Every structure is written in structure tokens, then in C-alpha cells.
């Protein structure tokens, strides 16, 4: 669930308020969004993807975390590289290569590693290579 809105990073652009599909945020009086309906958060990570300054963090858990949990601590999230990590994975943000350009997943039927390597060196395995999805 959404656990963090960083006051220091937020540039009050309202992107997350618009983009959250389940309408979890309200605009705060100071422009910084407020997590108004955390119980409606569907843990889809989309607000993180849309935040231009990596000011948001969505914990992967489906219930709210206790107050002292490290995943609610901005310093911890920065130190561990977790803050903004989904945007990095998607290749979103200025100067990045869109992740979709690189999204060549593995063959979805496990081969023995040796045969897969052999196959993926050439293009022979590409018919069964699926990208995203499922």
C-alpha cells in the first residue's frame, strides 16, 4: 500500500492525484497530496511510476505497515535504493531508455539452461519469447 509522500521531494504537480486509479489521494492545503483513503489503495504502483520526483513509495504489502517500519522511512528507502526503483525499472524519466525497448523476457517454457543459452544467442528461440504480461 501507499506508505510515503515525501514533503521534501514533492513539487505539488498533482500527477499522482490524477493518475491513481482508485482515487486514494486528496490535494492537500499546501499542495502536497494527502493519503486520504489508504484502504482503497490496490497496490498497483502506478502513482510511483507517474511521480516525476520519486516522492512516493508503495510498500508491496496489502495491509498498512506499522509506524516504525523501515519501509515508511524515507532515509532507509533512499539508502537501499528502493525509492524510485519502479520508475527506474520502467525506464521512465528524463534521459532514460524506455524499459519497453529492452523488455525481452525469457522463454516461458523452462529449457535446460544450456539449451536456452544456445537458443537465445541466436534468434531461434524468439518465437517462444514473450515479453511482458501474465
Amino acid at each position, binding site marked *: 500500500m501507499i506508505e510515503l509522500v515525501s514533503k521534501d521531494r514533492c513539487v505539488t504537480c498533482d500527477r499522482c492525484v490524477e493518475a491513481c486509479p482508485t482515487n486514494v489521494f486528496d490535494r492537500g492545503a499546501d499542495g502536497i497530496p494527502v493519503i486520504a483513503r489508504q484502504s482503497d489503495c490496490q497496490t498497483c504502483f502506478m502513482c510511483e511510476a507517474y511521480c516525476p520526483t520519486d516522492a512516493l513509495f508503495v510498500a508491496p504489502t496489502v495491509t498498512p505497515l506499522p509506524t516504525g517500519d523501515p519501509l515508511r522511512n524515507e532515509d532507509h528507502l533512499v539508502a537501499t535504493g*528502493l525509492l524510485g526503483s519502479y520508475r527506474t525499472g520502467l525506464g521512465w524519466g528524463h534521459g532514460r531508455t524506455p*524499459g*519497453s525497448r529492452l523488455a525481452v523476457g525469457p*522463454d516461458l517454457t523452462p529449457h535446460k539452461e544450456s539449451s536456452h543459452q544456445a537458443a537465445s544467442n541466436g534468434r531461434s528461440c524468439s518465437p517462444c519469447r514473450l515479453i511482458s504480461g501474465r
Partner: protein
Amino acid sequence: MIDILDLTADVLVAGGGPAGAWAALKAAQAGADVILVDKGYLGTSGATASAGTGVWYVEPETEAREAAMASRENLNGHLSDRRWMARVLDQTYANINELATAGRYPFPILDDGSELRRGVQGPEYMRRMRAWLKRAGVRILDHSPVLELLTDPAGAVAGVAGHRRQLDQPYRVRAGAVVLATGGCAFLSRALGCDVNTGDGALFAAEVGAAFSGMEFSNAYAIAPEFSTVTKTAYYNYATFYREDGTVLEGAGSQRGRSVIARALLTGRVFARLDLAGETVRAAMRLGQPNFFLPFDRMRIDPFTDRFPITLLLEGTVRGTGGVRVADEDCSTGVAGLYVAGDAATRELICGGFTGGGSHNSAWAMSSGTWAGTAAARHARALGPAAKRRRLIATGQAGLRPTGAQLGTHHDVVRAVQAETHPYEKNYLRHGDVLAEALATLDELWTYTSAHTRGPDPVGGRQAAAMVAHARWMYTAALARTESRGMHKRLDYPDTDPTRRHRLLVGGLDELWTKADPVRPHTPLDLAVAS
């Protein structure tokens, strides 16, 4: 609350997932003035946006196409139709190529310079679709769930009414035709991106007399780490499944053997480890699906070396195949002015009784969206300006206009419907006695909801009613199909009955009905019989 927002369009599209986005685009390309409204936000909302999809993109070569069509027919119970499969393959191929060029989607580039077009990342795909729709002149209203259809006095669909929830403002759109692309129903299970999919469109369609097909194929459950929502299942092909004591759970698997997991989860925890993936595969997985790794990285779990607990989350008709019956090739519904696309429509035509992923759904969303959008534009044009002067009649009932005193909240109804649909022992491992009992409870819940539920917010009430209706159609169809076929497996009827190889229709609101679809699936089996 502020005054009602009153708008007019040729075509109104309800839902901004891929099906709705393609419908709106194609209607606009056909010259229609289009408004698209979404409950959430076109770009992030729905199953595709946060999950991403493989796409049934097959080169137009006879052998490859033949293999693609044949590959699932056994699994799907031979209920899919070859003519529909062929046209979906054609349409999908065209749309994906258009997405790459006019839509500017950045597909991976292979060593020889060609692009790999067999899948799309959800956030990127839907962001591109939004930009493309804007270029095409489509007006988009986000955070504006539809609450009901409006008809003219003759019963033809003539618009929608809804609620702009960030402004607390009601709205109404008069339109020549409406496309319902509101997705399937996952019963607020928290499956990735699916909490907006509460089956609203199905309820709206039923209220104007549309029928459903394939509602028995509605028990898709997906694997997710126990603590999380990420129901991305493809990579579990590389998993071994374990019991809590560390012994291997024999027979468990992601594709075949998911019911073994369900059974084991009834009595204890189940763990997984992706131990069949070597270094190359691991690296490719990270590039292929970055969101698959979010729960692991954030909980400091290495899925390749650590055993982690898993669960199965209900995806209902999102990765089931049931939905509004498609009456014709243009995705019309039999109700004048109403068209359906994507998961809101039945996918049996190409998926029969089984999907679970593997690219057919996304192909169906973009193909049916294309046909529905094009046909809706044509319908609106044929009606001409008189369409916008029609007297409008509201059709919404349960959850919106209770017949008695308002009691309780929609939250109570949601909890009650979840208690009948989520449990594996009811919906997954199906048995007639259990289904009948659950259906009786749901029937009572429907009577109660129709009489007493409204709000506190109008969207919540409608969602709750839609879920109850959905569950009743599901179990009515599941009880009527006294055999096992596709994903619908009955413990009391474990075999497939060759005399029941037909699609099953269901409909009604207070009184439900079922009957065999008089239209037969067109399959190689039928051709063999005919010759």
C-alpha cells in the same frame, strides 16, 4: 454537490483500458465525436495498465496461424470459433503494427533491426494510447465512473449517467451509441490493477436486457506472493512449490496443477522458489517484467534462492472468459445502440472456456474494441442529429435506486459477496451442492441489495450490486453446466460430456434464466462432423 455536467457526443465509450481506448480511437478515426469516461484514469486504470500483456501477434503465415488457433482448443473445451480466431489474428496484427508506427510504442529492437512485437508493458502501452487518443481528438473524463445507461423511450441506448468523483459532480452524456468496455470482475480481490473491475458494465447491460455467455468460466485464480498483489504468473513456470515443512508439493504447477496449490492452501501454507531459472533467464526476467520483482526486492526476498509463501487471488472474469453475449461481428449486443469490447464482452469466441493469460485477452481487447468503436460510429451517424434530441430514461436500479429504506452500507454487501466468491472451496473446486448453497445466499443478498443498498457513495453502491449480480450469473451458469470443461471443473461431474459442447447463455436480474446458445462454435470438430 455542484450542478450536473451535461455533454453530447456521437459515441460514448465507458472504460479506458485497452478495449475502450481502441474503441474510442477507431470511432474517432471513423469521424465520430467521441467521449471516453473512466472510473479511474486512462493510462493507469484496469488490468493491462499495471500488469502488461503478452499479445497474440502471429505473422500472417498459414502454418503459424493454424498452429496458433489449434494450440488452445483442447484446453478451452472446443468452444472457441475458428472464424473469430482468424479475424482476431488479422485485426491484432494490424493494430499492433499501427501501435508501433502511428502509436509510437517503443518495442524492443532485435539484432537484425526488426522489432519484437509480441508483448507490451502496461504503463507504457496505456500512456501511449492516451496520448494517441488526445491527438485523435477524443475527449477524456477521468475519475468519472458511469453509474447507469440511459435509453430512449423505445429502449435503444442513448447515453450514460455517472459521477465525477473528484468534483462530487453528477454528469450525463447523450450519445448516438455507447460502447461498454468496463473490464471483467475480480471481486475486489486486490489482484494486480483489478480493483476497478467490479463488473459494472455487465450490470448496466443486464438492466437494458443484454444476455451473457460463458459466465461459468469465471473462476480464474492467479498466483501471488502471500503478502502482495502482484498476480503475474508466467514466471512461476520456473518454480518448484513446497509445503511449509520444506517438502515438495507434488503435482503443483503454475499452468497445470494450480488446483493442487488451491487444495494445499485450504489446510496450510504453500511456498514457491524459482529454482529452475538459471542466470540468463533471471536477467531476462528482470527486463521482461520489472513489476514482477517489486514485492521481492522491497521485502528483501531473493525469489531464485529463497522460498516465499504464495497465495491464489481471484481474477474472476478478468482472466476468465465470460461476459456480455456478442450478437454479431460488429460486437453489437442485440440491444440497439449498445456495443461491448474487451473483458466486458464474452471472450469465448476465441478463448472458449479457458484463458488465464497468454495473449488472447489483449488481442481480444484491441480487436473487439476496434469493431465496437467502428460500428458505434456508424450507428451514430445513421441516427443523425435526431439522436441528440431523444428523451432519456434512466435504467439503473440495484445499488442506485433502492426500492425500500436505505440500510447498512455497500461495504457490508461487498464482504458478503466476497464470502461466496473468493473461497477456493466454493468457486475454484466447484461442487453442485456447494454452488447451490452459495447461490441461495447470493439470491437473498440480491433481494436485500436491490431493496436497501445505496452508498454512502453512489459508486460504491453500484459496484457492490454489480458484484452480486455477477456472482449470481456465474453460479447459475456453473450449476447448469453439469460437466467439467475448460476452466470450469466440477468435483461432482469430473468428465466432459460431449453432448454439452455448446456455449451457455444466462441472463436476468431478479429472475435468472439459462439456455444453450443456438449459435454453434465453428471448430475443426464441427467440420469433421459435417464432412
